[in-house]
Structure formats: structure tokens, C-alpha cells
């Protein structure tokens, strides 16, 4: 995609649905770095992705456990979803210790909340998603920054057309 693309949702349900749609374009090894304040919708978006990957268990933010792993049925080679939250991580060593960069190479995809504190210790195939709250209560703007074109540009704009924002 062009380095940055933006999408807009107007309700929690839509954020979930958007996450589900994004999950369809994820491949093993991919890390989505989620940036946004408390309540921005990082976890809601991840819940959508998890649902899209066929995960039925309840997904909550792993603020204290830091990394949660969920089994995926192997669709498109994905066997695991790693859901991490670096909010409480205090140093680069601590972030490195979570081994997200190594685990994601084992048939996994990763969603990393507050991942912008230590992107260098995460996996190589990274897409940054900055989430902004809009003017309406449940409005959220998702800015995808995909410098290395991890998502296929044309594919993503078509897939997400209904949420597209110029």
C-alpha cells in the first residue's frame, strides 16, 4: 500500500468487523504494532482479528501477563496468535525477554499493544496501526503505516473499501 492508509469505523461492532477483515490478509510472521491511547480500541481491534482467525475464547488485554497465546487452526499457515501488551514493560531487555520476535517466526501472527516502545525487538514484518478517536463517541480512525509493504497494497484497499477514508 502507499505508506499510509486510513480507515474509519463508527461503532465497536464495526471495529470488530474491521479487525476480522484485516485478519483475512494476515500471513505467518506478521506483526501489527498497535499505537493509541487507553481506550483507543487496540484490544477491540485485536478481538476482531482473533475472531477472524477462528479463535473462540475471550480475548482481553494481557496488561499483566504481557503476552497471551491463542491456538489458530492453521489457516494460511497460521498456528498461533500472539497478543502482547507492552504498557507495563519497563526496559528494552524486558521487552526483548518476551521473545515476540522469535515466536512470531513459528507460524504465528502478533498483535502488540503499545508495541511502539520497542519495535526493534519485535519481528521483522511489521505494520504500524495508529488508532485515533474521532469526533463522535465510538468513531475510530485507523492509520496503517506499512513502510515495507507487508500487506499487499492493492489487495488491502479493495478489501477494506467499506472503511476507506480519503
Amino acid at each position: 500500500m502507499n505508506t499510509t492508509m486510513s480507515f474509519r469505523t463508527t461503532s465497536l461492532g464495526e471495529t470488530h468487523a474491521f479487525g476480522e477483515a484485516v485478519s483475512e490478509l494476515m500471513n505467518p510472521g506478521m506483526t501489527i504494532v498497535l499505537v493509541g491511547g487507553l481506550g483507543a480500541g487496540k484490544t477491540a481491534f485485536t478481538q476482531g482479528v482473533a475472531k477472524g482467525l477462528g479463535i473462540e475464547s475471550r480475548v482481553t488485554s494481557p496488561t499483566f501477563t504481557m503476552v497471551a497465546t491463542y491456538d489458530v487452526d492453521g489457516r494460511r499457515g497460521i498456528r498461533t496468535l500472539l497478543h502482547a501488551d507492552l504498557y507495563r514493560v519497563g526496559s528494552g531487555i524486558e521487552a526483548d525477554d518476551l521473545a515476540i520476535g522469535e515466536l512470531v517466526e513459528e507460524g504465528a501472527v502478533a498483535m502488540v499493544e503499545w508495541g511502539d516502545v520497542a519495535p526493534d525487538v519485535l519481528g521483522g514484518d511489521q505494520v504500524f496501526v495508529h488508532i485515533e478517536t474521532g469526533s463522535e463517541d465510538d468513531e475510530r480512525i485507523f492509520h496503517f503505516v506499512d513502510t515495507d509493504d507487508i500487506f499487499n497494497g492493492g489487495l488491502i484497499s479493495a478489501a477494506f473499501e467499506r472503511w476507506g477514508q480519503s
Partner: protein
Amino acid sequence: MKLLSLETATAAGGAALVIDGVVIGESMTTKDRRHAETLLPSAIELLAQAGITVQELDGIVIDVGPGLYTGLRVGIATARSLAMASGSGLYSLTSLEVLANDERLGTSQTVLSVLDARRGEVFAQYFTVENGQRFPQGEPRVLLPGDLIEEMDTRPQSLVVVGDGGVRYQELFAHLQGVEFAPVPLFPSPATAAMMVERGGVTKQDIPSDVTPIYLRDPDAVANFKVAAPSRLADS
């Protein structure tokens, strides 16, 4: 000596039981790297098959890396606990030296051990041969495969590359003269590690908690931590 050897540093993990220089059994799996779930059961099974208890062991042998973080933690915690509980000695070796000392490689050539470190990097170390014995050259390192090959270009010599890191980046080595790839082993073998202890020369660690993993962290990546990430400060 009765030695129980544990291996969790790479994608392949397992255990081996070696008694008086004879490999009684070795159990390895590469499936999904579930070391935490498979390591102890396979160790217990090896002991049960041989009809010996943990207390009868003379030593626990552990690979301390460099290797994958998640595996190393499982292996080292298990080895320390077993050593403490049984009062047997604890012996630690590095993944790269265990790889280089694998019998299948013979001792005629210099070996370059290369393990996949993930995140586009490899762990590497050279081992030369003198009087049929292998000696490490320098310390274990973590580096980009491209940098390793550039360095090999400047000091051409005939050698054998061993390990899953060499295989993963094999095409990068293609232009180098005199470089061979060993088809096996891809990973350090716990039986090899135990045999190295059996032959002597591996120091017994008296304090189990002194045995710690070799992570070889990338200092730049670790230092690049934004304590004051703007988005984080704004909300806390």
C-alpha cells in the same frame, strides 16, 4: 557416569541418557517447539526405561545457548531444579560447541557452527581441530548472515558449515570457495553434550543458580526502548 542431558536451545528439543559413555536413549522433537510440555516427560521416560531414578544420576547436562529465549528458559530452569533436587552435578555447554563436536562431523576440518537466531540473525562460532580435538575460536556471536559471509570472504579457508542457520541462509554462502554444508546435524544433540562431559574437560557447576542462559542480545535493539513514548505518557 550416569548423565541426563537436556536440550532446548533451538527449534529441536529433547533429552538423552548416557551411562558410562554409552548412549542409552535420546528423544528429540522438532514439532511446534513445545519444550515446556515435552521436556520433563521425555526425561522421565528415559530414566524409567533404564530403571534409574533422578537421585542416582551423577550429572545433569544443559545447553545454555546461544539459542531461542523461550526454549532456553525452560531447559535451564528444569536443569537447575533437577540438579538441586537430586544433588547431582550440573554441567553446562554452549549450543555452538555441542553442534561442532557432533561425531557425525568427524575431526578433519574447521567447523563453523551457525544457528538460526530468528529476526534475520544467526549465532555463529568457528571451531578448529588440533590433535583430534575441537577448539573454539573467539566467543559465540550474534550477527547478520550477510556480515558473517563478508567476513568469511576476507579469510577464505576450507570449512564445514553446520546447523540450521547455515541451511536457512545457504544461498548466501553459495559463492564462497571451499565451504561445505554438513547435512547433519541441524541442531545440537543432547547425547553429544553428555558425551562431551563424559570425556572430561567440562567443568562441573557447583551452584546450580550460577548456570544462566547466553542470550547474546542485540544491544542496539534493547537500547532502543522509548521509556517516554509520547502516546504512553499522554495517558499515564
